[in-house]
């Protein structure tokens, strides 16, 4: 023990050495710019045409202006559009993961489906949004199909409707990410001891029971991971609504996300306001991150402890049910 410890001390410099490039690159390319951003958030500093106004120190004026703005509304938009994509994403992914791993379901071409559902993630978000824009335009093919099928009397103007626009953003996020989530969940399900499923089958469990009583509880940590990573993606939502609404967040700014709002200030070279928005965003992100870190950590700890005994009572319960 003592020997190992001494060795570890002598190896410590390698630890620093190995993480050095990461931190140097981070410091140069992200941290210095970030500090500058924070610094300018306390200044009046913008461009008027080609004239540079400022930087004049203004204290918290930018933050006051920010809190007087519709910032909470944009936060709400971001959450709503994220949920519109995330809820179907997690449901569909769970079902697909269950199907792909169900030994009683013999789906042919699994590999094909797995590859295909991932493909929307490869397309440029802006190109994807362009296609959606054309497909769901007032005279586009989707409306055409709905009208000629008799489902609608006249075209539905998706992009002029609050929920039409938000729904499309949700749908696109769903399509781009459900493949990724499915694969994640599938791997988690495959990590479950197959004996459990066999036992369940022997006991005459219906697939539904197996899913809710075995699969779901067992993949909880992965579900948390998916939730967190998706939340981070949601906070950073930008390309899709930006291109779909031409940067305007129409209608009535109900599809304006936080990053789109930040982008508006960056666009007008308002370094003061953009800085303030960035700082608030960074704080929100940091809080989210701490939540993630502690959730994952406590998950790990509780899992390590419980892992061994966890199956037993459940198995018994199943037997009792049968």
């Amino acid at each position, binding site marked *: 023990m003592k020997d190992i410890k001494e060795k570890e001390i002598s190896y410590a410099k390698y630890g620093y050495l190995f993480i050095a490039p990461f931190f140097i690159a981070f410091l140069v390319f992200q941290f210095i710019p970030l500090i500058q951003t924070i610094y300018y958030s306390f200044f009046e500093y913008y461009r008027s045409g*080609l004239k540079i106004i400022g930087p004049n120190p203004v204290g918290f004026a930018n933050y006051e202006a920010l809190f007087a703005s519709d910032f909470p509304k944009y936060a709400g938009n971001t959450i709503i559009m994220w949920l519109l994509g995330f809820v179907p994403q997690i449901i569909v992914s769970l079902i697909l993961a269950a199907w792909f791993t169900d030994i009683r379901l013999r789906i042919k071409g699994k590999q094909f489906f797995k590859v295909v559902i991932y493909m929307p993630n490869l397309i440029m978000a802006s190109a994807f949004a362009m296609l959606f824009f054309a497909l769901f335009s007032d005279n586009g093919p989707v409306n055409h199909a709905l009208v000629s099928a008799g489902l609608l009397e006249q075209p539905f103007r998706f992009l*002029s409707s609050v929920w039409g626009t938000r729904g499309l953003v949700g749908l696109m996020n769903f399509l781009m990410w459900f493949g990724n989530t499915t694969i994640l969940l599938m791997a988690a399900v495959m990590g479950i001891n197959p004996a459990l499923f066999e036992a369940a089958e022997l006991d005459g469990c219906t697939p539904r029971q197996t899913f809710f009583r075995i699969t779901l509880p067992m993949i909880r940590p992965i579900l948390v991971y998916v939730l967190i990573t998706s939340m981070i993606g949601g906070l950073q939502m930008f390309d899709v609504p930006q291109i779909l609404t031409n940067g305007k967040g129409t*209608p009535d700014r109900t599809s304006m996300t936080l990053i789109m709002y930040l982008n508006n200030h960056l*666009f007008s070279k308002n370094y003061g*306001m953009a800085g303030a928005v960035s700082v608030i965003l960074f704080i929100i992100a940091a809080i989210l991150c701490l939540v993630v870190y502690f959730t994952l950590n406590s998950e790990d700890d509780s899992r390590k402890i419980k892992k061994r005994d966890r199956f037993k009572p459940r198995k018994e319960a199943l037997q009792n049910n049968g």
Partner: protein
Amino acid sequence: MKKTWKAIMSFALIAAMAFGLAACGGSGDSGSADSGEQGKVLNIWCWNDEFQSRFNDYYPGVKEVAEDKSTTTLEDGTVVKWTINPNENNNYQDKLDEALLKQADAAPDDKIDIFLVEADYALKYVDSDYTMDVKDLGLTDDDMAQQYQYTKDIVTDSNGAIKGTTWQATPGLFAYRRSIAKDVLGTDDPDAVQEALADWDKFNAVAEKAAAKGYKMLSGYDDAYRAFSNNVSAPWVDGTEVKVDPNIMKWVAQTKEFTDKGYNNKTSLWSDGWAKDQGPDGNVFGFFYSTWGINFTLMGNSLETPEDQGGKAEVGNGIFGDYAVCYGPEPYYWGGTWICGAAGTDNTELVADVMKQLTCNADIMKQITLDTQDYTNNQEAMQAIADDPEFGSDFLGGQNHIALFVEAAKKIDMSNAGPYDQGCNESIQGAFKDYFDGNVDMDGAKANFEKTIKEKYPDIKTVVWPE
């Protein structure tokens, strides 16, 4: 594997350092002032290749064009270096601004000599010290005598100096469907139709008549916008205050009425629905269009079988021949690109010559129009085409539209253009689209406009609406 890694990494790091050092070294000897000596590199900044192709095709001094078009070599050995940045997401202006702000410190051969601007934001550059008075470059009033007044107004700064010049004039007209006009008004004669559409009240009355027959007067919300916004009584911004002009609110009222009464198809400019409305299946009375739009956009949209699918641009293909043009209720213009000489250029003589040849030389201007159908900024040359009894457009049923453009261009008054036009126009159209769609009420639309405009222009403090 390890060796490759090391090689790649050391290469990347060394290269990065080398670049850093080179840049430091470079900045040391920059700033050497030019003493009237002319440089050998002409830097031109633009956002697309329109001007580049005009330059390469029509500037007399061109000797050879590089295969990748990145440079053009002139007879005297000067190399023209093209920097083309896309417009998307304001990228062009961002880059241009950064470069102009560093113009004073740049090495002579890196300084921007010429940059191009669009009308909507021209004054941002014109009203700054970064553009040169064309008279200081050597252009005279005489040189520019044949240019349309409005093309000079747009680039005239607050002291009355002209800071740019253009080879195009882009007056707007109202293009209507002959068959629909006949049905609604009983005539398709351009003079008679113009009489029926001579002002906005008459225009609205025709819209009602057209609706009664099952037609739409316009396709979308912003079709008529420029006809209103070009005829305002004052610039958008006064000090830190945006003053919304009554004429803009007239557009809002008219568009709302048209929308609620079903006189339009609720489309937006350049949308697929808008393009479709111009084609064989369209039921729209007419479109506000500018010089370039007639032959390039409207004609393409009117054909049943497109040209590169074997269709011919002739009567019988779609509604070719069914359009005609008249002045419409108010004169306006749409589009156009201006050439500005950048302050600090070391090629003043060449910049002046480019401006003279490409925007003042009547022969070159006429040739551009004959070759490309681009309407050029030379009254004499355009008048000659207008007076040609042989000239007529088959697409417009034989009408000589150039003759109408000649008259329309004279009436355009752009003395109220301002540096905030681009943002204000975009914001007001965007904010009131929600109002037309019924997503917000009038106050909501006004509030959204105020939010957007203050985000776009941090110096704007108040917005005043007309009573």
